[in-house]
């Protein structure tokens, strides 16, 4: 391993490694010398490096050993190519395009994530109802199959586009870009993306949202944030939902909040019951405030 930055490149190049273009995405270039390679050769070879590289290395060829070894031709031809590219760079690029589109349209965008059955759809229905046109809201909803959630959400009066992912366990940025073409955007201020119910996979995919909202219901147990740290780590806002059932579930609220604080120390937390409306008002005010903040930022940018 490269000892200078831990990037995992071979610090001592084995025989046969040739092109070693050592360029680091984290912004520093460092020439490093590989010392002397001591190995015996029965032939001379010259080093043709077919890639640019900023380090020199000396090969010390000692011929005092009484054996010869030949290099496999395949070894000679092997070379290392540095890539250092995010695996989901295509998605990240599309997410940035989405983000630009959202800003140009003055949209505040939420990516709502949770496990299946934590109450996302009911929570969003109530959110739209309570916003009562103070923010004109549109919804994109992702599910593996059926448009049941879309139908339920339509009853709130908001325009809804259903994305059916088939076997995919998450939404990707390009699915959002396609769905946007079907959504009437005129005057829309808030776009809510209800992701596929799943606490693992959607965390990896940026959709271009302003806020990541993670729901967990009191019926799921206090330790949910400890069991799924990555998704809670990535949350800007956490909604503890179905608080009307807390007593029946013997939900230990303080323990749940402490667990949440361990996994998501900075996330803003709301405790809500969409059914009774308890705790919904601060959430609604928060959304209006977020939209204002975004609008102000976007007007400053222009």
């Amino acid at each position, binding site marked *: 391993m490269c000892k200078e930055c831990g*990037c*995992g*490149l071979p610090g001592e190049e084995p025989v046969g*490694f040739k092109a070693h273009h050592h360029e680091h995405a984290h912004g520093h270039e460092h020439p490093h010398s590989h010392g002397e390679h001591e190995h015996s050769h029965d032939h001379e070879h010259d080093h043709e490096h077919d890639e640019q590289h900023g380090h020199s290395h000396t090969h010390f060829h000692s011929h005092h050993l009484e054996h010869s070894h030949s290099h496999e031709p*395949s070894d000679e*031809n*092997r*070379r*290392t*190519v*540095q*890539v*250092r*590219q*995010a*695996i*989901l*760079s*295509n*998605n990240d690029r599309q997410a940035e395009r989405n983000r630009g589109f959202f800003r140009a349209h003055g949209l505040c965008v939420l990516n709502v994530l949770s496990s299946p059955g934590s109450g996302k759809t009911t929570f969003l229905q109530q959110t739209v109802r309570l916003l009562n046109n103070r923010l004109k809201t549109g919804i994109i909803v992702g599910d593996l199959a059926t448009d049941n959630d879309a139908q339920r959400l339509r009853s709130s009066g908001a325009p809804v586009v259903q994305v059916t992912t088939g076997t*995919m*366990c*998450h939404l990707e940025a390009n699915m959002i870009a396609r769905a946007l073409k079907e959504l009437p955007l005129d005057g829309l201020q808030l776009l809510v993306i209800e992701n596929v119910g*799943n606490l*693992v*996979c959607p*965390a*990896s995919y940026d959709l271009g949202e302003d806020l990541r909202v993670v729901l967990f219901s009191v019926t799921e147990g206090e330790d949910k944030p*400890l069991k799924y*740290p*990555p*998704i809670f*780590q*990535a949350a800007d806002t956490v909604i503890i939902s179905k608080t009307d059932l807390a007593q029946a579930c013997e939900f230990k609220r303080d323990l749940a909040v402490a667990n949440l*604080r*361990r*996994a*998501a*120390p*900075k996330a803003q937390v709301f405790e809500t019951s969409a059914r009774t409306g308890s705790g919904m008002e601060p959430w609604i005010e928060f959304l209006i405030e977020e939209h204002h903040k975004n609008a102000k930022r976007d007007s400053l940018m222009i």
Partner: protein
Amino acid sequence: MHELAIMDSALNLALDQAQKAGANHIHLIRLRIGVLSGVVPEALQFAFEALAPGTLAEGAALDIQHVPARFWCQDCTREFESDDLFSECPNCHRPSGELRAGREMELACMEIE
């Protein structure tokens, strides 16, 4: 669960790069995967074995480097590594909200010929 999709993206990226470099074969693909990426290395390996046959990467070794979670503690003004995915500073025991590394999913390098 989504490792197949992620491996598919990684493999496409690798094949694309290999083609650009005029390679006939990929011997090794090295990925850097953060502990907070939500990706299970074993599942990536499994997905790779399913996807690689018939491509330039058939028979290639998949080397997955684990990137630990690193946080910044504002109170102690120091960076610390965390093994358990949580961000408690070992010095002051307060949680940190600033993740500096651990979400990576990156194609680091390849050995080709």
